[in-house]
């Protein structure tokens, strides 16, 4: 019961923070850069509202809630992938050559995740939710986690002057890495009670953590994306030149 109360409190707090952040970002007229998080935040709010309604009507263990939860998770991982793509675009704002390479790489990655999840679905044909959607969600989730880490390393490499983007990427890192780390702990502890309860609260806590970091980034950190990077390092230019991409 206590766990349920904490779960509901986290759920509704998350909805309130999401709504407040959407309103702030939509109303702030200075700089359009934070608007890139708006589609993802809208999807997050819509998903959480739909889940809250279904949870209240049918309960946690109902089939309806499960279907709504995993279907909206499908929408959320896809929007998270596009958010990471937008962040890559923003990071490569002054490096068109690198962006052409990254764009192609992201397109291939998206196709490959669909293909690999589809292969597993072909072994479990006839069960779309557990056979394909959940499998696809999990694969794309971990892909976003790895891509976000690569993006963070890229920002360090090019010594980006865009501090706001750095914080937004860190927020996404909290969102993705926290549950993955807890899952690893859960697996190592072979599903003991402590790890199980930790895993139960980590997902909403990490989402709220991401929202709070984003709120700080949007409210307090200046948008400096239009400035040129602090110091041009030719290392990545050499890497992209090595690929010599002509798209």
């Amino acid at each position: 019961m206590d766990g349920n109360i904490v779960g509901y409190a986290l759920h509704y707090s998350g909805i309130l923070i999401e709504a407040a952040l959407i309103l702030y970002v939509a109303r702030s007229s200075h700089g359009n850069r934070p608007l890139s998080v708006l589609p993802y935040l809208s999807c997050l709010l819509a998903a959480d509202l739909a889940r809250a309604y279904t949870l209240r009507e049918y309960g946690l263990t109902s089939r309806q809630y499960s279907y709504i939860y995993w279907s909206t998770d499908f929408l959320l991982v896809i929007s998270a992938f596009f958010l990471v793509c937008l962040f890559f675009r923003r990071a490569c704002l002054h490096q068109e050559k690198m962006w052409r390479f990254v764009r192609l790489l992201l397109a291939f990655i998206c196709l490959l995740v669909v293909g690999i999840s589809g292969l597993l679905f072909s072994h479990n044909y006839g069960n779309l939710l557990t056979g394909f959607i959940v499998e696809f969600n999990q694969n794309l989730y971990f892909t976003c986690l790895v891509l976000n880490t690569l993006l963070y390393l890229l920002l360090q490499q090019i010594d980006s002057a865009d501090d706001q983007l750095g914080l937004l990427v860190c927020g996404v890192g909290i969102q993705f890495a926290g549950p993955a780390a807890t899952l690893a702990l859960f697996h190592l502890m072979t599903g003991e009670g402590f790890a199980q309860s930790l895993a139960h609260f980590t997902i909403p806590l990490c989402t709220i953590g991401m929202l709070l970091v984003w709120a700080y980034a949007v409210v307090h950190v200046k948008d400096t994306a239009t400035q040129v990077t602090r110091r041009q390092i030719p290392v990545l230019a050499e890497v992209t030149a090595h690929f010599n991409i002509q798209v």
Partner: protein
Amino acid sequence: MKNLVLTFLLALLVVLTCVSIRRMVSGTPSFAGQKPALVAIGCAPVPPLPKPTQ
């Protein structure tokens, strides 16, 4: 064409790394007979997966 193939191979490497990490972290149905643990996005409580329809 060569660059396209190289980019595709790099993308394949990234995706296979992600899938491997996922399998290591969350387990597979065949691992010690446990159901795979799941990650998700959002603030709502995570429900159990519905049983597959026969």
